[in-house]
């Protein structure tokens, strides 16, 4: 529908030639590169150089704080990552945790953000207070809230969650070790992570909601559309691009998941393997085990995987005419 309107709007502008921009560029030969240089230098220093350095380091055996010179070992770090039974299992498991996290968090968090945004978009008295409460988890530092969540997830009836479950089930459900048991550890981190960051997505969606013209709702109600039909046919298409954006950044956040896992599982007596993500594993390898070469190889592989995902996601979104 929108595609039909666009050519008509553009028609009068299209035939106009654009001589100015061309003259501007050729007149100042270095203007383009000059204006681009601050950004390019920044990108080169903070993105390209570290990545190239990681690639270079991954071909060496480098130990942090070691007087031994770095030793060139070719692809050994990579072959180890894929063939060493311990390393490949750990790395694969960390990747799997990341994917599980993304597969659950991206849809749940996006839908939840939309739901909350619709909820707080109503013009009720005291809505500011609700908005503040929903937004609060994002304001508190994670290190602080992690302390509370550790108490919530604590095992035995001392844990708040267990106490509540025990109260409602008459004591039948009160001994789950939420973080300690491998089967619930990742789930617990997912719940905490959604609680922590859903409000950020909600704020973005809320801004988009408020930019949907009210005339559309009026027109829809004249057409006798009920609330649900209005939501599906006016609200959702109106904020489609924002929803795609929210899903994109949530995916990116899911893959660089680090602090939630680090704070919740390092401080309890938790089997690290059950919640390890690629980021925590890289930090652990590079800075606890001081094995920089190995960690560099992991980052390179991870970078490749992320790039592939980003390309697929972009292609999928483009096809449907989005951002």
């Amino acid at each position, binding site marked *: 529908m929108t595609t039909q309107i666009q050519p008509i709007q553009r028609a009068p502008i299209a035939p106009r030639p654009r001589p100015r921009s061309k003259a501007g560029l050729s007149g100042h030969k270095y203007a*383009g590169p000059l204006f681009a240089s601050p950004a390019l230098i920044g990108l080169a220093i903070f993105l390209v*150089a570290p990545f190239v350095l990681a690639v270079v380091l991954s071909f060496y055996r480098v130990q942090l704080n*070691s007087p031994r010179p770095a030793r060139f070992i070719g692809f050994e770090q990579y072959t180890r990552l894929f063939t060493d039974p311990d390393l490949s299992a750990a790395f694969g498991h960390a990747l799997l945790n990341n994917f599980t996290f993304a597969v659950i968090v991206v849809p749940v968090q996006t839908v939840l953000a939309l739901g909350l945004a619709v909820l707080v978009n109503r013009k009720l008295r005291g809505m500011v207070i609700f908005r503040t409460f929903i937004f609060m988890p994002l304001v508190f530092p994670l290190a602080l809230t992690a302390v509370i969540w550790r108490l919530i997830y604590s095992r035995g009836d*001392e844990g708040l969650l267990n106490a509540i479950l025990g109260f409602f089930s008459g004591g039948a459900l009160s001994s789950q070790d939420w973080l300690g048991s491998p089967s619930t550890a990742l789930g617990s981190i997912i719940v905490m992570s959604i609680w922590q960051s859903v409000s950020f997505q909600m704020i973005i969606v809320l801004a988009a909601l408020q930019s949907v013209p009210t005339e559309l709702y009026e027109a829809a109600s004249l057409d006798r559309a009920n609330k649900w039909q209005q939501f599906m046919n006016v609200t959702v298409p109106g904020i489609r691009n924002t929803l795609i954006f929210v899903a994109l950044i949530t995916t990116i956040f899911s893959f660089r998941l680090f602090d939630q896992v680090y704070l919740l599982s390092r401080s309890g007596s938790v089997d690290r393997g059950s919640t390890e993500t690629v980021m925590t594993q890289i930090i652990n390898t590079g800075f606890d085990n*001081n094995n920089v070469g190995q960690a560099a190889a992991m980052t390179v592989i991870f970078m490749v995987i992320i790039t592939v995902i980003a390309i697929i996601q972009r292609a999928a979104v483009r096809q449907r005419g989005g951002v």
Partner: protein
Amino acid sequence: MMTIPKSRRRSGILGVAAAVSIATLALTACGGPSTDTAGSAVEAGSGEGTIKVWAVDGQAAENDALKKIIANFESSQSKIKVDLKLFPSDQYTKAVNSAAPEDLPDVLDFDGPTLASFVYNGKMAPLKDSVSGETLANQTDSIKSQNTVDDAVYGVGMMNAGLALWGNKKLLDGAGVHYPTTPEEAWTAEEFTGVLDKLATVVPGGKPLDLSEQYGFAGEWGTCCSAGPVIWSGGGTMLKDNKAAGALDSDANVKSLTQFASWKKYTDPNADGLAFTSGRVALSWVGHWTYPTYKALGSDLVSIPLPNFGKGTKTASGTFAWGMGAKSKNGTAAGKFLDHLMSDESVRTYTDANGAPPATKTALAASALYGPGKQLQFLGDQLSKACGTEDRITESCVSVTRPVTAGYPVVTDQVGKAEAAIYAGKDAKEALSAAARAIDQNFADNDGYKK
């Protein structure tokens, strides 16, 4: 459109980036310059002037005590001045690691397990020629063992650290449990399970034990103070002849750590850190540093040896100590300052401030807390019965020094990780074998961390 072809620009950026990265790589590679025989570069110097001192920014009371000790030193003589610099504790080891040996001060504080790595990097000087013989002879065996690398002493310590099962006498008596008071009488692991069964009936939540889970097992607490004593007491070691395979994954360790994990059902997770003082648990497995909080129990507070897994009760020992920078130009003055730090008066000032057991023989004997007949005499006794490093463990010695190797960061990470996994229910043999393989691989990559 564009004045510079795309491809050329990109290659330019890549070229710059590659140049930068190669330069950085060169820097990384040369981080620690290869050194000749460690520390021989210390110059005796004139014995006067200003010496630089680096220390960890500890608790306020510790810092005040240190400043007082330095003031006493400066007023006791007029030739040597002290320039003290304090570093935040989480940055301290990084600061020493990233400093070149020339940039290190004359005297520096270091954490026990990091010493071997500092020596390996040529950052520390042996103390033999700078510090007086009396000072060295007055060091307790347990701290001496921590501060000795390849048969040379690189550090002297004012304080030590030790572990115990802190007991709540009221709850123990309530359950009719008789508790051991000397290392020789320590409960065996089987007896300990029976004790826990009895105690479970008298504590409110039915979980009478605190294993300090709030510190996290997957880290230094796990290795030094939780898995360590269990492994050593069961007759096992973490490394044997610089290899973990055959040592860390031995059947003895599998048995001991499985037994340890079986106590999880008696254990309060202690997420709030109040399990012992609030009376939720009767026994708390933790270090001497909780005494200032635990003494709230008054005469109900008792200290009990950790359980015996077959080869006698064992505790970890070792903590921050003092050494000399490898390139000090004023060895004599630095040595005099270290002598002053280790004097009875200085040690008393310092350990009174933080409650730690003194690490010198005379100060330990005179301690109002750890000395003979005093409330924490048991912890003092444990430290006097030093085993040295784990390869020298006997049935009767108690305090064990953590492995002295430059590869300790890998050891502590892997052992802690394995313990946490076992405690969470993973098969002990599997977890320990994986840890052993990871340690051995890293040691092999670094030629065994031998010079």
